[in-house]
């Protein structure tokens, strides 16, 4: 084992980090669930699922070289 030249090896620091990971994970999950609910109850399903593949290509990319 290599000995590191600073005192960060203290166990309480690591176990605090362990708890912080759990708490932050819960906060992020709750935030996403809240935002998901908020968006779904504000916008209609037709608007939220209105994306179509290739829409931008249809106006910006000219593929046919024969015409």
């Amino acid at each position, binding site marked *: 084992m290599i000995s590191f030249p600073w005192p960060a090896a203290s166990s309480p620091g690591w176990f605090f980090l362990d708890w912080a990971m759990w708490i932050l*994970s819960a906060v992020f*999950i709750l935030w996403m669930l809240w935002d998901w609910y908020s*968006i779904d109850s504000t916008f*209609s399903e037709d*608007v939220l699922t*209105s*994306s*179509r593949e290739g829409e931008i290509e*249809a106006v910006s990319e000219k*593929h046919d070289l024969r015409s």
Partner: protein
Amino acid sequence: MTAATTTANGAPQKISLLRVLGPAHVWALGVGIVLVGEFTGWNFAAGKGGTLGAMIALWVCGLLYTAVAMIDSEVTSTVAAAGGQYAQAKHIVGPLMAFNVALYLVFAYTMLEASDAILVGDTMVQFASDMGVTGLTHHSFIVFTVVFLVWLNYRGILATLNFNFVITALAFLSIVILFLSVQPWSQGAVLKLGEMVTKENALPYGWLGVIAAMQFGIWYYLGIEGTTQAAEEVRSPARSLPLGTMTGMITLLIAATMTWYVCASLLPWQYLGQTVYPLYDAAKATGSWQLQYLLFVGTVLAGVASANGCINDAARAWFSMGRDRYLPAWFAAVHPTYRTPYRALIFLLPVALAFALIADINQAITFSILSGVLHYTFMSINVIMFRNKWPLGTIRRGYVHPFHPIPAYILLLLCIVTFFAIFLGYGTQLIAMVAFYAIVSVWFHFYRYQYVRRGAQFTMPWPKPVGY
């Protein structure tokens, strides 16, 4: 209550993914997904075929992936849609192939994401243990890695890939610093390649071992093709995708070569073939705490970058299937503020967490590799069909790969060899997985396809293919 659903001129309001990315983001996505393979995974090739076998696998797989990158760059520069190879398969081969390709993508990336999260957790615990801390478990680090990255992806792709660019560059830098620190120009000073690799142990299992090493040799580059998933969000797909993918491939070839050289010169092949942290262990073997610390940080950053890219790609493949009704249209929702496929992201979160917390890392990696090789097999056939149906000069391409069809045939041949290599090590899983894809194909053909938008799914404004 719902917000306004029409624009000022009365047209229905439309929400789509944002085109905000450049070549550096494409590089960050591709290299970010893959670079973790230098920090763990590739070294199991040494266990299969010895250190020299791992090097042969490095270069043969490098050839395989150069073919993948060239082929992908040409096709994607014309099919610039989220879903990447899924959209390619749909337009070039047909819906059933597209459905299978999308599943390959989702499984390959979700399993890789789970493996990355396990790696991050295990590295944290290992590092704490090296500092004398015991009793720590990896669960909180795994959960935080996945949840934080899904949150980041949820909030927008630009910030996600800016973040990935920074951490991927730092992880790559850690390999370069390790390489330069061990004086590679002076064998014997720190590195001892001559002692570690001898005539007797270079190929301990002969050429069969070299073929078996291919199974893990692809870990050096697995996922570079993920750059195409960003196609719909890149400002100039015809330029950025080939540029980002090819520079990414060059970066990976350099990183893989440096990694092999340092690890093979510091660690005996028996140890190298079974450790989970080859670069971290190589840094430990130098006796320098600075290098050990640096490679600990590099390993964690590489794991995070890879998981981040995988979350991005798996969600876009899932979203694309929803958009064409291959899956319920509910998954095709785009967030009106952040412009991300937010439902697909949230849906895949518990799936990834379940695999990361329950599955064994070797099983997860094998599942990911199997899906990846099936995917590459498709790509070789796909590009031949693409060139036959739309020959050069019929549609505009952002990039034309040279020497066609040689790269396609090389790719197909190497895939067959890799399947054989996987069969040697994980024959049961290979058969089970092929059976799984066969069953879901039957389900798709006889049940799900009735819901698909038959004509509307073919969106590219291409001329009719030759012969139709």
